[in-house]
């Protein structure tokens, strides 16, 4: 069975979904990504879905689950590159991906994650200085 590669770049994990995923592959990605966040202490996850030509309720649920699990592990998730036809269909299907941050492309997604992780580090730094 093929796998979807997860790349680590500094404190971020990057995933590009380039295959038409069957359900088990989607579940496997969800599990592996959660494990990698915990192993690497990654602060952000960027999922590029620009090659996906559909997102149905199962894949939508996987994306929401990844974002929720990442949040519990103190990491932020950004989904980038959704095709317009996919966005239209997703909303009509009834899925709006609550709690999932999105950006139009990888550049914008990276900028979003970098500022979000910097902010949370600033907050931690302020907390630390208060307790000194």
């Amino acid at each position, binding site marked *: 069975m093929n796998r979807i590669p997860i790349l680590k770049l500094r404190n971020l994990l990057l995933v590009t979904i380039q295959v038409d995923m069957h359900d*088990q592959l989607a579940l496997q990605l969800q599990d592996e990504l959660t494990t990698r966040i915990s192993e690497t202490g990654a602060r952000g996850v960027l999922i590029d879905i620009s090659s996906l030509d*559909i997102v*149905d*309720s199962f894949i939508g649920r996987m994306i929401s689950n990844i974002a929720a699990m990442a949040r519990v592990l103190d990491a932020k998730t950004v989904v980038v590159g959704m095709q317009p*036809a*996919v966005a239209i*269909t997703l909303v*009509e*299907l009834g899925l709006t991906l609550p709690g999932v941050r999105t950006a139009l492309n990888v550049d914008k997604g990276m900028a979003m994650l970098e500022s979000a992780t910097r902010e949370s580090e600033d907050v931690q730094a302020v907390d630390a200085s208060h307790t000194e």
Partner: protein
Amino acid sequence: MPVTRSEALELRSASDVVSVRQAVRTWAIDAGFSLVDQTKIVTAASEIARNTVAYGGGGTALLELITDGNRSGLRVAFEDHGPGIPDVQQALTDHFTTGTGLGLGLGGAKRLVNEFAISSKVGEGTRVVITRWK
């Protein structure tokens, strides 16, 4: 309604769901659907195909290119001989699920197509027919 082309596909596993998705995409392109319309019927087919495998214990998907006067469309009929759905109206309600899903499958698929028909008998199986016109 005249059927200009048809093909039956097996639905036994999660990878068959992917095959059905890809076949529906190819047929929707052949039927001259816009990208948004292709995406809608492929997504609807994916939802129903998953139900056929997950709840119906597998079955078939029958793809048909149809014409009605001067309009053309794509019709996909999903059939299984599984346990059937005791309350179809309830199953069509958003966020109703007996499994682990979001409960958007049937109701969501219905919103993505022009025509949607479902018939189910407990102990005999379920048949869902979706049609999208160009």
